[in-house]
């Protein structure tokens, strides 16, 4: 019955609404698929009981004709840094190993209101800090295309699940590329919305001015359908955009005639793997053959994005993660001599190495004497990066680039050289700094069979353009339909 898991979310939904398949049956399929792909370690928590209960409820609503959402009844999974009421939300960390939020994140709530079925909480880099999903307290995630390779990060579990056909769609989060890069490494499609497009309420914060929740699925239509559900103004989030949202699925026309695509020179220089380069440029040519207009241009500030990003993200993280102290929730050491000892033990034992590293980097950048040279400088750099993009979008509708300089890396090869790992974020971090929407979609494979992804970057609130471009591309190509051998078994 793996064929069921091959369906897209919208295809499944149709069958559910036509009563060809029951919600409980579909949910059980997904739960089984997760179980069978256990070796990939994609899930931290599987909430079977709750999922089946919800499935029964939704089935009744389908029977009564009460459902409204195009994705009603579809089982799904959510990255484990998004709060789900009554269900463990760990952020891949020992620090929150047993944290059960008494509230839902707004995005999780919206998915629940839309009658989708939460089956599992997906594995991730600890507190969303990482590019390989190797830093999770609950063990690393493996790339379903080749289990010796990383799935990317930090939403590695979410992306791998979709690629492995263990989930129809998932939610990830993206602060510096954490949706887009794993999507590319796993050959699936995902979008980081415009900053503020999707509510951050209930998303456990890493870099507050950069974080966004976004959908991951196998088709642009699915991604659009999920975005329709989760996007929109939320008064519980002061940074939420009070602009009308939705209509993304309906707006997919597949027509890219006259679409002006900018290709940044600086993104295609040394450091970019040749196979990746060729795949992405082929994709560009494909779009051109469909009527898009390509143009190479210079996008300044490229080399400054990574340092600016790491300062800002780490600074905000150092503050956001200060609340983890073993007092109100989460891990608490058994014995501590006094208050200071409690803090030191809880945080030293509860956090992993990468998290500690970024917290210290952030504290440094904000500390007295260094604030101006680092944090303030980074904020100025951010302003210049945003301006560079604003200027570019005066001429282009979208910017096309690779998502990462390489395809997936081997497990165990990245963590010892953090700086090298950070440099892999070159194409993604500037997008978060500028608050722009960006989509990743598969556009090829390496000779060794690893997926390659491309990135479309758009101006603020142009998710519809990005999704439409991906949709058009996916009408003409079939990279997004390929499945890893294991999954098809």
């Amino acid at each position, binding site marked *: 019955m793996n064929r069921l898991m091959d369906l897209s979310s919208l295809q499944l939904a149709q069958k559910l609404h036509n009563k060809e398949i029951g919600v409980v049956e579909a949910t059980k399929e997904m739960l089984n698929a997760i179980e069978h792909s256990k070796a990939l370690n994609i899930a931290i928590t599987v909430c079977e009981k709750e999922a089946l209960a919800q499935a029964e409820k939704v089935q009744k609503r389908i029977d009564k004709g009460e459902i409204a959402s195009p994705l009603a009844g579809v089982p799904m999974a959510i990255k484990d840094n998004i709060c789900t009421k009554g269900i463990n939300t760990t952020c891949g960390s020992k620090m929150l190993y047993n944290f059960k939020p*008494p509230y839902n994140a707004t995005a999780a709530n919206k998915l629940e209101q839309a009658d989708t079925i939460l089956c599992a909480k997906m594995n991730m880099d600890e507190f969303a800090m990482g590019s390989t999903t190797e830093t999770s307290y609950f063990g690393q995630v493996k790339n379903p295309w080749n289990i010796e390779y990383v799935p990317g990060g930090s939403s590695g579990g979410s992306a791998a699940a979709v690629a492995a056909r263990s989930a129809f769609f998932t939610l990830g989060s993206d602060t510096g590329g954490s949706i887009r890069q794993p999507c590319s490494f796993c050959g699936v499609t995902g979008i980081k919305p415009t900053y503020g497009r999707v509510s951050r309420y209930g998303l456990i914060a890493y870099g507050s001015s950069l974080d966004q929740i976004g959908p991951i699925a196998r088709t642009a239509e699915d991604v659009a359908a999920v975005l329709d559900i989760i996007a929109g103004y939320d008064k519980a989030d002061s940074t939420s955009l009070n602009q009308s949202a939705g209509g993304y699925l309906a707006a997919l026309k597949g027509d890219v005639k006259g679409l002006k695509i900018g290709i940044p020179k600086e993104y295609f220089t040394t450091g970019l793997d040749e196979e990746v380069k060729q795949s992405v440029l082929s994709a560009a040519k494909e779009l051109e053959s469909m009527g898009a207009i390509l143009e190479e241009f210079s996008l300044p500030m490229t080399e400054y994005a990574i*340092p600016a990003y790491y300062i800002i993200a780490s600074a905000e993280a150092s503050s956001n993660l200060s609340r983890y102290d073993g*007092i*109100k929730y989460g891990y608490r050491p058994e014995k501590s001599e006094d208050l200071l000892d409690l803090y030191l033990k809880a945080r030293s034992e509860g956090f992993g190495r990468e998290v*500690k590293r970024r917290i210290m980097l952030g504290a440094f950048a904000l500390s007295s004497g260094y604030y101006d040279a680092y944090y*303030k400088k980074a904020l*100025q750099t951010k302003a210049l990066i945003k301006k560079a993009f604003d200027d570019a979008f005066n001429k282009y509708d979208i910017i096309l680039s690779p998502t990462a300089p390489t395809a997936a890396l081997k497990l165990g090869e990245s963590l010892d050289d953090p700086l090298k790992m950070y440099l892999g974020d070159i194409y993604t971090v500037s997008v978060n700094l500028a608050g722009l929407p960006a989509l990743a979609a598969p556009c090829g494979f390496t000779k060794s069979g690893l997926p390659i992804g491309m990135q479309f970057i758009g101006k603020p609130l142009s998710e519809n353009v990005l999704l439409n471009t991906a949709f058009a591309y996916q009408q003409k190509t079939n990279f997004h339909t390929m499945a890893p051998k294991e999954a098809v078994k």
Partner: protein
Amino acid sequence: MQITDEIITYVAALARIDLQESEREQAKNDLGNIISYINMLNELDTTNVEPMSHTFDINNVFREDRVLPSSEREQLLENAPSKQEGCYKVPKTVE
């Protein structure tokens, strides 16, 4: 940039993180490398550039002064690792 013992001790203390001897050297190296790399920002001329903390021009996001029901204490304290008499409990904290 040289991350000295003094700096790493200071920064770890600020973050309430206790670095073991083995971790300390590694942390110094890692942070040193990262910060050296980050120092490239010094090349960038940012004279007269306003530091941008908020990306979009949104302001005056408010809520009305209305009282809403608070949480049930049970619910709030459910995740507390140590509690007593409806309070969170910590080691004796002398002012």
